């Protein structure tokens, strides 16, 4: 009987396009899945649906004009991307920025990180099927967006960094608002745990899913919270401290498990660390200028320049090859999401389609960053 059935009830491999318009792919990402029933055999990435040739556009823009384009890469950590370009030019021209600027930049970066992680937390729950978390995440995000709007003038694409400082001085309400946010968020973060992290259904969906070992994580070049969930120490803020990160105490969050739940917990713990960084700095903002005067036309000396920052998704790098003109000869962005996404096949092989959605969520991708 069994032989009779296996002869006739053969399963067949087939292909399924996931995306480019699927809501669980966080944008216009297309995944070509090779499936056996519901089990994933292979995941192939098909990028290019939101390619805007930003690197090429940078070659015709001056260094001042490049900054606003980096907002449009990883829009959730736009401040860190701006900072990378500014730090690179300041480093190349030996512009010394004041302590006040460094502290402002660090605080804004950490606020961006919290806002990005809060959004990720909400969307993570929604991908798994818990729609409530999306609304709860946006409640806290709204407070940070208000801080940004008041000081920087925009909520998402802030474009607040300029070469040699920041565009405006801090608004007088800034410190008060940040303090309000810290007390509010300290109360609400345990609520996140109660609502989602400790939920058994949620844990069963993530534990042991999307495993990647420490060796593989290094081999694939994973970075950011995704790699730290596999126990790889890779925090740029620790390795190459920039801005004011050398004067604050914080812990690099490492979880050795390497599964989706470990990556989830890394991000939750990172929010606590960001809060503590903000708390250390908010009372100690030095007085001084918010902007150093620079030349009207900025020309970089000939040579290669590289600057790395830790964005909310990981190690964001800007590489500039200059021929001494006011435009860069070649500019390359190293985006953290792209490296993280390449490991998707390794993580998702042999699992179900529903698990793929959970894994994509814990990698925390932003497609415009991957597809520049």
């Amino acid at each position, binding site marked *: 009987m069994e032989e009779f059935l296996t002869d006739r009830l053969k399963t067949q491999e087939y292909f399924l396009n996931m995306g480019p318009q699927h809501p669980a792919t966080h944008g216009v990402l297309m995944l070509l899945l090779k499936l056996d029933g519901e089990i994933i055999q292979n995941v192939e990435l098909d990028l290019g649906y939101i390619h805007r040739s930003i690197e090429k556009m940078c070659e015709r823009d001056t260094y001042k004009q490049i900054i606003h384009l980096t907002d449009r890469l990883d829009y959730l950590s736009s401040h860190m991307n701006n900072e990378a370009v500014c730090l690179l030019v300041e480093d190349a021209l030996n512009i010394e920025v004041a302590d006040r600027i460094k502290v402002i930049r660090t605080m804004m970066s950490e606020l961006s990180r919290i806002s990005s992680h809060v959004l990720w937390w909400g969307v993570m729950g929604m991908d798994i099927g818990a729609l409530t978390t999306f609304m709860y995440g946006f409640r806290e995000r709204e407070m940070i967006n208000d801080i940004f709007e*008041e000081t920087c*003038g925009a909520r998402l694409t802030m474009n607040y960094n300029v070469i040699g400082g920041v565009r405006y001085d801090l608004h007088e309400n800034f410190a008060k608002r940040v303090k309000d946010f810290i007390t509010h968020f300290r109360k609400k973060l345990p609520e996140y745990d109660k609502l989602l992290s400790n*939920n058994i259904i949620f844990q069963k969906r993530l534990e042991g899913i999307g495993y990647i070992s420490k060796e593989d994580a290094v081999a694939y070049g994973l970075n950011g919270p995704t790699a730290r969930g596999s126990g790889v120490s890779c925090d740029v803020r620790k390795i190459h401290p920039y801005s004011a990160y050398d004067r604050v105490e914080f812990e690099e969050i490492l979880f050795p498990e390497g599964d989706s739940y470990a990556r989830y917990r890394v991000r939750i713990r990172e929010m606590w660390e960001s809060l503590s960084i903000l708390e250390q700095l908010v009372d100690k903002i030095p007085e001084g200028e918010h902007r150093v005067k620079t030349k009207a036309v900025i020309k970089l000396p000939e040579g290669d320049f590289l600057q790395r920052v830790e964005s909310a998704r990981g190690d964001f790098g800007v590489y500039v090859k200059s021929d001494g003109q006011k435009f860069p000869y070649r500019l390359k962005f190293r985006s953290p999401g792209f490296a993280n996404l390449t490991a998707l096949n390794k993580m998702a092989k042999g699992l179900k389609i529903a698990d793929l959605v959970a894994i994509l969520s814990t990698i925390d991708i932003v497609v415009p960053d991957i597809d520049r």
Partner: protein
Amino acid sequence: MSYFSDIINGTKSLLIGMRITGKYFFVNFLTRKDVITEQYPDNLETLNMFDRYRGEVTMYHNENNEHRCDACTLCEKACPNGSIEIISDKELNPETGKNVRYIVKHIYHLEMCTMCGLCIEACPQDAIQWGQNFHHVQYDRGKLTKVLNKPGSKIMIKTKEKK
């Protein structure tokens, strides 16, 4: 055994989560405290945005319909997207006997603007500044192209003070 403990723990964790959502649903709804849902701001006339909000580029005109723009085209050069176009002409000033440049049209393409603020930073006269209107919805793309200098406006006679 783990089968039953899983069921018990699962129900427990679900109830803990539902206590939070229930609290927000009932208590906050009844007491009207901590309600965070906001409606779309339809009250555009009375709405106050933050001072620094970057909505659109506008040109300052005083009560005599005069602006400060002297057609230096620095904003046009600073713009990375080509959203600003300046059409200017020359006119003989009878007092000094020199040709003076003035703007015929200061065209602003809102549909291409990314609100980076480089034009406003570049302006030496403070002629253009940020407007706070965020409600840019139009049915026709052409309506987003605006002429910033008002019809019949003239250049302000230069004074030392700014704004």
